[in-house]
Every structure is written in C-alpha cells, then in structure tokens.
C-alpha cells in the first residue's frame, strides 16, 4: 500500500516552504521532498548554518530567509524529507522518489511543483571546457561552503551577475572582470518599462547599489560584449570577446557564464502540462489558471518554475497555493488570498524592465554552427541545423536523429537552446516548435534501486 498525503510539495525553497507552512497550518498533511540536506532552496541555501561573516557578505535579502526557514522547521505537521530526489510522478499523482539509496512512492492529493529555476544554457565556443562554470554555481559554492575563486571572470547578462560580483567584493575576492553582453546605455531606451516598474522600487535601488559597489571596487567592466569565446585546450585559460569595437583577452582559469534563469520545466513537462512561450522572458512557462493550477488537475506550480518573478514572489505564490488548497478543504481565508494576489501584481511590475534590460544575448539564442549545444552527446548547433534541413521539424525528431537531450542531463541543460536553434532555422515560433518530451526518471536512478522498488513506501508498508 502506498502512503498518501494531502499535499506533496517538491522543493524546499521559498515557494515550497511557504506553501507547506500555510497548508500544514490549516491541518492538511504536507510532505515536502527536497534534494538538498537543508531547507532554503538555491536562494536561501545554507541560511541556517552560515556564520555572521558570510551572512554579511551575502546581504540582507539572503538573511531574510532565516525567518522563513525557522517557521518552516517549527510548523507542526510538515513532513519534511531532505535528500529526497523525485524521479517520477504518475498520472495518478504517485510521486516516486529516491532517498538514502531506496525508492518510495507517495500518492498525493495535490502536487505542488516548487522546483524553481535553472540557469539558461550559455552555449558559446569553449563552454564545455573544465574551468567554465556558471555564475549560479559559483554563488552556490559561496553560500554552501564559502569557497571562492580569486580570478573569476563573470560573463553574460542578468542581475545575478551583479549580485555575485558585489558579494565577491564583500568577500574580499573580487572578480577579475565583468563581461556583460547587455549593450551599453541600454537603459535609456527602456524608460517606458522603467516607469512601469516604479511600483517595485526596492529592486531598482538594490540593483543600483550593487553596481555602485562593484564599480567602486575598480572591477573592469565591459558591456555589449560579442563574439565571446573561451580559450584553452584541456582547461579554460582565457576569455576572448569584442566590446565597443575592440578585441579583448582576459586570462583566467575560472570563467562563469550566465544568461539569466528560466523555469525548471522538467516536472510540468513530464506531466504533459500545457506550456506557452513567453517572448519577454524568452522561455516556456506552464499555463496556469487563476488558482496556479496547471492544465493537469491537482497539479499546481509555485515560484519561479512558473515564470521568473524572484524569491519574494515565490514565497507569496507558495502561500497562495497553500491557502487555496486549504480553502478547498474548508479553511477559507479570502482576505489573505486577495491581499497576496494584489501584492504579487505589484511585485510583477518590475519584470518587464528587467526582462528587457537583461534579455539573453542573441549569440546564446543562436550559437555559431561549430558551438556544442548538447554537452552530454556533444552535438553542435550546425548538426542541429542540418537535421532541421533534413526534415526534423522539432526537438523530439532532432533528438531521434542526433541523441540531443538523451545524455545524463536528460535535456535540462540544452532543452531551450535546442528549441531556440530549431525555431530560428524553421522560422516557426518556439511554441510551434515545441519542446522535448521529458522521459522519466527525472534524475539518474540505479537499476538495482529500481529492482528493489515496488511502488509502495516500504517503511509504512511494514508498519
């Protein structure tokens, strides 16, 4: 017999924690499955355990997570299961996951996907070399273990580039340079969006102060970078690019790429929820109704997995979903629901400005022919274009021809890049080009673990 729970929440970031707090607070049984050993997600990673020094480096927005994590820990009735990797969800909402080398299944009344965002793939020449990482990965190292590299060059676009640079300045290991693909003085053209975002002035203030800090630290900054190429034979040794009509070469063994973050679609795609293409965010998003329910009944999305809106919104969305599910069980709190919804609208007002300002560079949306797009199977953009010319209309046919997305990352890294190359080649919008059909298991699963799995939750079955 499988275990059952009113709600199974996947992910213990701000959205997942807040959802669990609200639902369990109303007496619903809530299981929270999370891959990490402690709650917080990417944004509040290790927030319970870091010392004051690292808290100062990471800043007040990070430290805010402490209160949420404590509330999560203290709410009675939350069945929190860290180090749990969800690898499948069936149409009966049986959530299958691996914990401690064994697999379990829980039947969920409602599934809340709170798996957040992934960094957008940045396929540029040389991005597969050792020493090339992502800005997000560097920040995880800083949050999780305080590890920093003293010669990191941050390359790309997006607020995270500036946030990490500012944190590295505070950590006394400033980056060697910031190479932005965002054009210089881009901001002037964005005044209309800027006015629209004045309802959320906190973001702009924070952004400007990060930039000031980085500039004051004297870190070289290049904007409008194009023709980015990472050099090295067996290890990255330098990044080369053009900016303002000049060619640049910066030696470094640590190149961190970033082109913003995009929703992690693995679970909503696995469940075959309807998705739409958001041209402003340049990514697919699951289609949600006003209750944040997907096109699949009783499957909800809270947080950046539904579209990038940031940590504050993620927490509010989590609360909202928790309250809405509790309301169905008779615990109606219309006032809080209404107030969360209007707060969410205010938070969202800054997005059009940020999305325009930090639009991904056209080079990563349309990599050069020789650039590897699918790292696992080493498939180049040119090979994908050729497969399209040979009659493959979408990612799934390209996958059948070339094995793109069939490696250990299961398409997580290359999915958007492949869809974008195909979209440009066919001249069809990404929505019509579609996306990989996501095949379970969502994370690699030991064959011996599967052999020992019978669909039930052994601990409960024994008892």
């Amino acid at each position, binding site marked *: 017999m499988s275990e059952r729970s009113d709600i199974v929440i996947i992910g213990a970031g701000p959205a997942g924690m807040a959802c669990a707090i609200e639902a369990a607070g109303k007496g619903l049984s809530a299981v929270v499955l999370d891959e990490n050993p402690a709650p917080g997600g990417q944004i509040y990673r290790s927030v319970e355990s870091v010392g004051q020094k690292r808290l100062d480096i990471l800043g007040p927005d990070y430290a805010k997570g402490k209160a949420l994590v404590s509330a999560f820990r203290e709410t009675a009735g939350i069945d929190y299961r860290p180090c749990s990797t969800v690898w499948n969800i069936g149409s009966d909402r049986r959530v*299958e996951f691996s914990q401690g080398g064994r697999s379990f299944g829980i039947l969920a009344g409602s599934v809340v996907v709170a798996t957040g965002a992934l960094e957008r793939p940045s396929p540029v020449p040389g991005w597969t070399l050792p020493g090339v990482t992502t800005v997000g990965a560097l920040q995880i190292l800083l949050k999780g273990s305080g590890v920093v590299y003293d010669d990191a060059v941050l390359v790309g676009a997006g607020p995270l580039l500036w946030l990490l640079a500012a944190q590295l300045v505070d950590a006394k290991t400033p980056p060697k340079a910031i190479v932005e693909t965002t054009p210089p003085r881009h901001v002037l053209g964005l005044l209309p969006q800027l006015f629209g975002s004045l309802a959320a002035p906190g973001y702009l203030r924070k952004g400007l102060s990060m930039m000031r800090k980085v500039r004051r630290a004297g870190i070289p900054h290049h904007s409008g970078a194009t023709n980015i190429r990472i050099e090295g034979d067996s290890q990255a040794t330098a990044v080369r690019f053009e900016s303002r009509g000049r060619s640049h070469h910066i030696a470094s063994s640590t190149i961190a790429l970033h082109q913003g973050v995009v929703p992690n679609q693995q679970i909503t795609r696995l469940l075959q929820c309807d998705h739409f293409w958001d041209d402003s965010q340049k990514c697919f998003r699951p289609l949600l109704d006003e209750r944040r329910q997907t096109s699949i009944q009783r499957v909800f999305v809270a947080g950046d997995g539904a579209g990038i809106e940031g940590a504050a919104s993620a927490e509010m969305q989590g609360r909202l979903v928790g309250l809405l599910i509790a309301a169905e069980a008779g615990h109606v709190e219309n006032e809080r629901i209404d107030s969360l919804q209007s707060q969410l609208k205010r938070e969202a007002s800054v997005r059009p400005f940020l999305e325009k300002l930090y639009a991904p560079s056209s080079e990563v949306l349309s990599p050069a022919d020789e650039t590897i797009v699918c790292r696992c199977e080493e498939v180049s953009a040119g090979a994908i274009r050729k497969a399209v010319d040979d009659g493959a209309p979408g990612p799934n046919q390209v996958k059948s021809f070339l094995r793109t997305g069939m*490696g*250990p990352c*299961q398409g997580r890294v290359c999915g958007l890049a492949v869809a974008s190359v195909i979209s440009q080649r066919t001249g069809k919008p990404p929505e019509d080009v579609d996306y990989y059909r996501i095949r379970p298991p969502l994370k690699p699963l030991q064959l011996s673990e599967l052999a020992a799995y019978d*669909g039930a939750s052994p601990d409960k079955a024994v008892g």
Partner: protein
Amino acid sequence: MTGPTESASPDLLIIGGGIHGCAAAFFAAKRGMSVTVLEKDSVARHASGVNAGGVRRLGRDFAEVPISVRSMEIWHEIGSLLDDETGFQIAPQIKVAENEAELAKLSERAEALEMQGFRHEVLLDRAQLRELLPAVADHAVGGLACLDDGFAQPFWATTAFRRKAEKLGARFIEHVAAERIEQDGTGWLVTTASGIIRASKLLVCAGAWSGALAAQLGEDAPVRGIAPLMIVTARLPHFCDAVVGAAGRPLSFKQMPNGTVVIGGGRRGIADPARNRSEILFSQLNLTAETAISLFPIMAEATIIRSWSGIEGCMPDEIPVIGPSKRHEGIFYAFGFSAHGFQLGPAVGETMSELIATGATQTDLTAFAIDRFENHRRSQGGQQ
C-alpha cells in the same frame, strides 16, 4: 521515376506513416504506383520510432517465420537499397536458458523449426553461450541464437524508407488524420480535416489506431493499444555484442555501440491511444530490472537515465493482420504487430506492394487474415 508527386488521387493511399506504411510506400513507388501516405502525427511518431530496434528472427511465431526470413534478407541489403542510414548492424540474437528445462524447450523449438526447413536458429551449450556472452551470469546453462540477426535505429530506418519513397515520387502528408472512409465507385474517398483524398486502393497500417478504421469498413479487428516499456542506462564499458532475451521470463537487452544499455521486454505501461499518450509504470519495471541484473551481474552498477514507451497495436493472438480486406475490393491491411513488427517491416512492405499492384502474392498470409477473430467469436458463440 514514375508517379506524380502532387497527385490528388493516387493509385494507393496508405494510412499510417510507421515502418510498414513507409516500407509499403517505398516498394509500391518502386513498382511505379503513385502513392500518398497519410499520417495523423509525424512519421515514426509511435511504435516505429520508439521500439527497441531488434531485427530478430529468433523465437518468432511459426506463422511469421517465412516473412521474417525474407525481411532479414532485405535488412542485410538495406544500406544499398535505401542509400541512407538505418543504424542496422548484424549482432547475434540470443535467448538465454537459465535451467536445463528451459534449454530442453529451446532445443525442441529448434528441431521443430528445422522440420519446416528453417535452420537459422541454433542451440548453444554452456561454453558456446559464454563465448558469445562473456558477461552472462554463472547460472545460465545455454541458449538459442540467430547469429546473423541484428538491430537498427527504428526512427532512422523508418525515415530512410520515407526519404527513398519520396525520391521515387511518394507524397507524405503529416499531421492530418483520416477521418472517414467511403466507397466511391471503384475507388475510395478518405475525408480529412484538410480535404478529401480519392484513391483507387487503400492500405491501412495505422497500428493501434487501425481498429477504428477497419470498423468503419465493417470489419472487426480487435486491436488494442499497448505501451511496452523500455529503459536505457548511462554508458557502460563495452561488455555485450548480442541482443539478449531470456527463455523463461520477459526480457530484451542490448548494449548499443555508444555503451548505453537498452532494456525492455514484456512489462507494459499504460497506453492511451485516444490522447496519443502512454505512461511509464516504474512499479512494473522492477521485475525487468531484476531480470537484467540477474542475467548480467554487471548491471547492478548501472544507472537508468531515461525510459520510454510508445503506443503499439496488439492483437488477441499476438500476431498481426496482414492481407486484403474480406469485404471490399481495394482495401488492404497491415497492423497489429503486437510489439514485434519492426523487423517484419521491409518484407511486409514488399509483400503488400506486390499484392496491391498485382492482386496476388507468393507469401502465405492465411494466418494473418482479418476475419480470423469473427470466425473465432462465431465458434465460441456457438458453444455457449
């Protein structure tokens, strides 16, 4: 090159762009017929794109053996026949016996087949088995093998038939479903959402979706959708050259040239042909995983990185419907291959094109008649 490419009323309209439809289109176009293939999704979307790719004569139902043997001849020449990549390569197909009783049964089968004049299945003793499968578990006692069977890439192979058929003038219409079939004088009218196609002859090879089309024509073909499950592991060091099954339990197992191991056989997920969807049931796959590990202990270390299933058409007696309609002139069928139709594709395509173009074929199709279930049901009804 014959046959107009944009013919509004082709000689032959094929419903279903799987390997059978594409192979039939190729052979019919080669005979000079004008051919249109109508596919409701995209070519090789279902069974033909997602099966395990085994090119196997081993262990076939006796009724299928002659077609399978003929198909193997075509497979061995497929590269030059289609001038394209199909991923076909020769590899032994081996059914492993895990005890003496299983081995005795395999031996009986090989003898029975030999009595009918077929010598492609050979019995392996303990030592011969280990020579072909060095990584096999200690308890395995022998096996039955077809040494020059093989495997291919199903999507590539199906697409290769399609491309060659197109070169010969066949026309493929994708994302358009056949909605209504009606007789029109001596020919047929097929209504679709994007217009009506008139054809003198019609071949239905629409897999799990064929039953509804046959029913429109007043023929009862109890084909149902099934979703055989397959899993594939991360790359492992090379340890196996053969495609392996087990005599006593369901298994299909092979290591691909890139080192990944594809494991399937027997276990099924949920097929939902009406919505074009299938679902993996991991609670069913545990026995497949267990079987793979017990036959190849090295597999205990393997990690699964992907699973898949596609919708295939299955008949109650697990052999296909192949042949002419019993009710209408100009209607033909090839469907319901019950999860082992991929290898048969080339010969079925050849046979159907011969039958459709000339009205006759040398191949004995008696066992595959579409009315075999009507007769069966009638006799059952009589007994009640």
